């Protein structure tokens, strides 16, 4: 049995600890060890953004972070975006603007957009498109996603 490391971290505002092998990515740990399957694997090499999480205030591809690197970090996944009170304005905007079709890329887009709008409350269309360049969507052609982000910006 390969030796596992004990990782202590914070995920979605809760202290979480888990065991993992060094070769397991943060994405794999979230999905298969911690049980948070909201972040998705689309490519496993940083080219699609379906695994986007917020890591110490920056959006990253969790497939390119090792599980052991999460030690002591503050991680936000899609599961942590809504609050007990209700959906986040970005989530609501995605629904109202029909900004998802199959929905597989949606968690990555929501986590990425949230980081953008928290740093820049009123981004232009081009700024949104640049920020989301690392998130692939094959269903929507991005139009309604960009509209949803602009819509949410007006409501945050």
């Amino acid at each position: 049995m390969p030796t596992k490391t004990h990782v202590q971290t914070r995920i979605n505002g809760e202290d979480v600890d888990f065991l993992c092998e060094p070769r397991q990515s943060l994405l794999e740990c979230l999905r298969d060890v911690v049980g948070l399957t909201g972040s998705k694997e689309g490519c496993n090499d940083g080219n699609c953004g379906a695994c986007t999480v917020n890591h110490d205030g920056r959006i990253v591809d969790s497939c390119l972070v090792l599980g052991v690197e999460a030690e002591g970090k503050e991680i936000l996944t899609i599961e942590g975006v809504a609050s007990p009170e209700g959906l986040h304005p970005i989530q609501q905007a995605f629904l109202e603007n029909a900004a998802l079709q199959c929905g597989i890329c949606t968690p990555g887009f929501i986590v990425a957009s949230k980081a953008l709008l928290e740093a820049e409350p009123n981004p232009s269309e081009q700024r949104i498109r640049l920020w989301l360049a690392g998130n692939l969507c094959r269903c929507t052609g991005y139009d309604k996603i960009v509209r949803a982000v602009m819509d949410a910006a007006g409501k945050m």
Partner: protein
Amino acid sequence: MAGGTDLIVLLRVNPERVNSPELIVDIKEIPELNELSYSATGGLTLGAAVPCYKIYQNPEVAKAYPGLIDAASLIGGIQIQGRASIGGNLCNSTPSADSIPAMIAHNVMCKIAGPNGTREVAVENFCTGPSQNVLESNELLVSLHFPPSPDNFGARYIRFIPRNEMDIAVAGAGVSVVLDNGTLKSARVALASVAPTPLLVNKISEALAGQPANEATVQEAGKLAKEAASPITDMRGTVEYRKHLCDVLTRRALAAAITRAKGGTVDAD
């Protein structure tokens, strides 16, 4: 491992390229590798592990080295820039690396540490072949030093990719100039993806020194870049197309560097 955005992928799909390691050392906590300090007289010391976003979010650095920001802000998308470092980009040592021509244009010196102490290597000499560099197996890249920019200095990195982000450069040109009253006191042009390593084209530096900063000089630089390039044909481009791009990108980057040297701004790519 710093950001890991190249290394983790290689470990999964092509570990032989990094000598199939059995141990990965995370260097992100080493203070010297995280240095990001700038002064107008001392220049910029960029630790090897500093992620791209810290560079372009630093207002002083962004103002002093727009040519570096050109590169740091287009590597791989926002998520990648949250982890990837310029030092890692350099150590990965592919000819297509976006940061290396920009660093060559800035006369960057690499500080390397090993069991026998530290040594310095000019960044244009760091890469020795595709995915090969001067680091011995017991050495570590510590930091990159950008000299303070002289007066009337301007630099620009432009690459060509088929989409608008997320692609590896088909070709790239990192250019810097120092102007003296409408004349090019000096110029440096380095090319990505058109040789086994990022390519500093000394012929252009020689040819441009003392020339007027005008269209004819720009055209001449483009021609020389095209001649100097020795690309291959692969799935990202053909020999003919890449050589042609060297001409195009060198002209565009040189014109932009001249604009910056005069105190002007250029559009984002």
